[in-house]
C-alpha cells in the first residue's frame, strides 16, 4: 500500500509545506542504518543542507504515502546519529532541539537489533521527551545472520508504542514502517531511577504543574534539571513560576550528591543504562554462534603488525583510484572544454558578429575556463566519494582510525583525521570534503584548517621548476625538503591550533565504535556520490567560476600608459599588474617584492598549476609557446636566466634565498580558490576567511624567515 511512495521516486515534485500531513524525525545511534532507511523512505525526494548555524548535515525528504486516510505527504528529517541526548556534543544538541522544538509530530527511533542494550538507552531518553514515537528494529537481516532474535511484541508492550522490523539495506519492512507511523503513541514506559531520585523527580514534577510547561514534558524537564543541564535551567527559569522549580532542583542536586555520593547526572545515566540492559536481556534471544565474522576479519585487518601495512596499502589503492582512474576523464573534460566547447563557442560568437570581441574573451577565456576548472574536479570527487563511502559503510574506516589514532593524538586529532590529511597530498579539495567522515565538529574544523599546509600534487611542478633553476645539484633534496616542511608545519601548527581553537569542545573522551563489517549498499553509495558531487558543483563551483572570471577581467583592464584597449592589454599594463604592484612591497621582506613575483603568487591563488604558467608569462612572454613551456618546465630552462634576474632584482641581489622563500611561500599560502570554496562549503565563510588569513600569515612569516636567514648565512659565508 505504500507503493505510491516508491512510484514517486525519480520524479520529484515540489511539495508545499502545507500539504505535509505528518512530520517524522529519524533518531538513533550512529551506524544503525538510519540514513539507508531515510534513503529508502524518501528516494530522490530529499534535500541535504545544514542545521541552522551548525556545520552538521541536515537531511530532509518527503514521501507520498497512501494510507487509510487516503494519500498523504510524510516529511522526514534524519537527525544526526547520537548515543544520547545529553547535549554534550553539537550533534546531540541538534538532535535534542529538533525533538523538543515542536517541529516534529512523530519520532521513529531506529535501533540496531544486534545491539539493543545501548540502543534502548537512547530510546528511553526519546521516550522521556513525551513525543509520539515508534520503534524500528533495523538491521534485522544482520540480526538473523548473527542468530539474534528480538521479541518485537514484548518491546512494544514495554514501551507502549508500535514496533516494526526493518532491513533498510534490502527495503524489507519499510512499507510496514510507513503504515505504523499513524499509530505512533506517547510512550508509557517509565525508567525506574531508584527511590531517592524518583522522590526528587516527583517533587519537581509537582512544582512544574504551576508552570505552563506541557505535562508530557514534566518528567523530561525534571530529569534535565537534576542532570544540571544549563539550557533546561535557563528555559525553565524563564517560565512563570519557573524560578522556584530551578531553585528546588539545585537543592535536590545537593541532596542527591550527599546521599548517593555521585553527580545526579551520572546516576541518571547509570540507572537508565541498567534499565536498558535489563530490558534488552528480556527481549533478545541470542543463538550460540561461533566467532562472529567481524572478529575474524579484525584478526587480520587490525593485526598489531599487519594492520598498518594493510591500511597503507588500502590508502595507496584509494589514492591510485582517485588520481589514476580519474586522469583519463579529466583529460577528456579538459579536451572537450578546450576543444569542441571552445570552438563551438567561438563559432556562435562569430555568427553573432562578436568574433574576437571582448565579450567572446570574457565568456571563452574567463567563464569557460572557470567551468572547465570546476568540471575537472568532478571525476576526482566522484571516485573519492565512492572510495570513502565504501570505506565508511563497510566499517573499515573506524579500524583505520583505531590503527592511526596514536599518530594523530599529539595534535588533538583522532585516527580518523589521518585519511583526509593523507588525501591532501593528492589534492586538498577532495580532502576537505573527506573531513565529513569525522564525527566531531572540532576535529572537522582543525583538520580542514591544517589541510592547506599539506603539499598537494599541484605544487610539485613549482618545486621542480624552482629547484632545477636555483638548486640544480640539490634538486631532489629540495623537493623532498618541501614535503618535510609540509609535514612539520601540519604537526607544529596542529599542536598550536589544538590549544587555541574551540577549546570548549576540546578533550572529551575518545571512544570510537568499531561497527560490525557490512557490505556497502550500491544504492546508498550511488545516492551519496550524486549528492556530494552535486553540492560541489553548486557551492564550490560558483566560487571557482567567479574567481576565474575576476582574474580574466583584471587581466583585461588596461591601466597606465601602455595604451592598450580592454581585453587587449600587454600583461604589464593590465589591472592585474597594477594590483600586483600594490601587493609587492608587502612581499619585500621575503625577497619577493616585485610585481612579477606578486602577480605570480596572486594568480597561484586561483590554482597552483597556474604558478608555472604565470612565471612564464611575466618573464618570457615573447616566446612562451605551449610546446616550449612543457619542455622547459622540466628544467633545461629558457626561463632560467630571466627568472634568476627577476628574483635577484626583487631581493636586492640574493636570488638563492629569495628562491627558497618563494618555494616556502608556494607551499604554505592559500592552496587554491577551490580549496577555500570547499572549506567555505563545509564549515562556513568565517572559517574559510580564517583559513585564508592564517595561511597567508604563516606563509609570509616562514618565507621572510627563510629569506632573511638565508641572506644572513650568505653574508656570513661570504665574509668567512
Amino acid at each position, binding site marked *: 500500500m505504500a507503493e505510491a511512495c516508491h512510484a514517486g521516486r525519480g520524479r520529484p515534485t515540489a511539495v508545499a509545506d502545507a500539504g505535509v500531513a505528518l512530520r517524522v524525525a529519524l533518531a538513533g545511534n550512529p551506524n544503525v542504518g538510519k540514513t539507508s532507511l531515510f534513503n529508502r523512505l524518501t528516494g530522490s525526494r530529499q534535500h541535504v543542507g545544514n542545521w541552522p548555524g551548525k556545520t552538521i548535515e541536515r537531511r530532509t525528504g518527503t514521501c507520498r504515502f497512501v494510507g487509510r486516510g487516503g494519500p498523504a505527504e510524510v516529511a522526514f528529517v534524519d537527525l544526526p546519529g547520537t*548515543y544520547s541526548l545529553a547535549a554534550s556534543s553539537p550533534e546531540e544538541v541538534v538532535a535534542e532541539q529538533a525533538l523538543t522544538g515542536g517541529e516534529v509530530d512523530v519520532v521513529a527511533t531506529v535501533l540496531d537489533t544486534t545491539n539493543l542494550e545501548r540502543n534502548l538507552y537512547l530510546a528511553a531518553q526519546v521516550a522521556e521527551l513525551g513525543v509520539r514515537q515508534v520503534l524500528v528494529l533495523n538491521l534485522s537481516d544482520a540480526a538473523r545472520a548473527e542468530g539474534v532474535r528480538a521479541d518485537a511484541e514484548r518491546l512494544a508492550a514495554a514501551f507502549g508504542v508500535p514496533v516494526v522490523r526493518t532491513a533498510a539495506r534490502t527495503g524489507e519492512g519499510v512499507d510496514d514502517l510507513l503504515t505504523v507511523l499513524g499509530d505512533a503513541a506517547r510512550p508509557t514506559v517509565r525508567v525506574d531511577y531508584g527511590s531517592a531520585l524518583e522522590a526528587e523527580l516527583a517533587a519537581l514534577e509537582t512544582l512544574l504543574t504551576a508552570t505552563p510547561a506541557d505535562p508530557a514534558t514534566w518528567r523530561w524537564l525534571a530529569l534535565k534539571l537534576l542532570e544540571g543541564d544549563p539550557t533546561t535551567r535557563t528555559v525553565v527559569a524563564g517560565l512563570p513560576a519557573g524560578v522556584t522549580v530551578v531553585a528546588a532542583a539545585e537543592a535536590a542536586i545537593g541532596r542527591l550528591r550527599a546521599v548517593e555520593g555521585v553527580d545526579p547526572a*551520572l546516576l541518571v545515566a547509570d540507572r537508565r*543504562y541498567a534499565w536498558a540492559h535489563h530490558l534488552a536481556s528480556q527481549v533478545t534471544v541470542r543463538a550460540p554462534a561461533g566467532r562472529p565474522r567481524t572478529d575474524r576479519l579484525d584478526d587480520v585487518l587490525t593485526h598489531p603488525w599487519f594492520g598498518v601495512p594493510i591500511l597503507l596499502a588500502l590508502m595507496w589503492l584509494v589514492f591510485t583510484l582517485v588520481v589514476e582512474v580519474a586522469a583519463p576523464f579529466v583529460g577528456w573534460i579538459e579536451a572537450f572544454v578546450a576543444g569542441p566547447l571552445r570552438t563551438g563557442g567561438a563559432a556562435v560568437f562569430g555568427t553573432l558578429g562578436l568574433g574576437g570581441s571582448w565579450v567572446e574573451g570574457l565568456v571563452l577565456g574567463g567563464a569557460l575556463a572557470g567551468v572547465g576548472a570546476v568540471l575537472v574536479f568532478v571525476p576526482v570527487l566522484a571516485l573519492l566519494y565512492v572510495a570513502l563511502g565504501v570505506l565508511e559503510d563497510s566499517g573499515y574506516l573506524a579500524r583505520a582510525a*583505531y590503527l592511526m589514532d596514536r599518530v594523530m593524538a599529539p595534535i588533538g586529532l583522532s585516527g580518523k583525521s589521518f585519511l583526509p590529511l593523507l588525501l591532501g597530498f593528492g589534492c586538498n579539495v577532495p580532502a576537505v570534503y573527506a573531513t565529513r567522515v569525522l564525527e566531531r565538529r572540532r576535529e572537522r574544523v582543525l583538520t580542514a584548517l591544517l589541510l592547506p599546509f599539506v603539499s598537494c600534487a599541484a605544487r610539485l611542478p613549482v618545486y621542480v621548476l624552482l629547484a632545477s633553476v636555483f638548486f640544480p645539484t640539490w634538486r631532489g633534496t629540495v623537493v623532498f625538503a618541501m614535503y618535510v616542511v609540509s609535514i612539520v608545519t601540519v604537526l607544529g601548527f596542529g599542536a598550536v591550533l589544538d590549544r587555541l581553537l574551540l577549546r570548549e569542545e576540546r578533550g572529551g573522551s*575518545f*571512544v570510537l565504535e568499531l561497527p560490525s563489517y557490512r557490505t556497502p549498499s550500491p544504492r546508498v553509495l550511488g545516492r551519496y556520490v550524486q549528492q556530494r558531487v552535486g553540492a560541489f558543483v553548486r557551492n564550490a563551483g560558483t566560487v571557482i567560476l567567479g574567481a576565474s572570471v575576476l582574474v580574466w577581467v583584471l587581466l583585461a583592464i588596461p591601466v597606465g600608459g601602455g595604451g592598450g584597449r580592454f581585453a587587449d592589454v600587454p600583461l604589464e599594463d593590465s589591472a592585474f599588474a597594477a594590483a600586483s604592484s600594490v601587493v609587492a612591497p608587502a612581499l619585500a621582506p621575503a625577497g619577493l617584492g616585485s610585481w612579477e613575483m606578486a602577480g605570480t603568487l596572486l594568480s597561484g591563488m586561483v590554482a597552483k598549476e597556474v604558478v608555472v604558467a604565470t612565471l612564464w608569462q611575466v618573464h618570457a612572454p615573447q616566446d612562451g609557446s605551449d610546446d616550449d613551456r612543457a619542455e622547459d618546465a622540466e628544467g633545461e630552462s629558457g626561463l632560467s636566466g630571466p627568472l634568476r634576474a627577476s628574483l635577484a632584482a626583487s631581493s636586492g641581489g640574493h636570488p638563492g634565498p629569495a628562491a627558497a622563500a618563494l618555494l616556502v611561500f608556494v607551499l604554505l599560502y592559500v592552496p587554491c580558490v577551490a580549496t577555500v570554496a570547499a572549506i567555505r562549503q563545509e564549515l562556513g565563510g568565517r572559517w574559510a576567511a580564517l583559513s585564508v588569513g592564517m595561511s597567508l600569515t604563516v606563509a609570509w612569516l616562514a618565507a621572510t624567515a627563510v629569506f632573511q636567514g638565508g641572506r644572513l648565512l650568505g653574508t656570513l659565508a661570504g665574509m668567512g
Partner: protein
Amino acid sequence: VTLAEVPVRTAVVIHALALPPGERRRLTELGLRHGARIEVLRRAPFGGPLALRVGSALFALRLAQAAQVAVRPEPGDG
C-alpha cells in the same frame, strides 16, 4: 588493576571509573559502567587504543582513559 594493564583476550568487570563526570557519563552511555563485563580484544600498535567488547558492541578506548578504569577479574575466572 586498571584496564590499561589487562592482557589481550581477557574478560574483566569494571570496578570503578576515576574519570571527570562528563567523560564518565559518556562512557556510561556506551555501556562502560560500573559492574559491566568487558573484554579486551586487541591493542593498537605503538601504544595506541585498546579494542574492547562491551555487550555486543566493539569500542576503541585510548590507553590514557583505560588507565583511569579500575577492573577486576571476571567472577569465576579466579
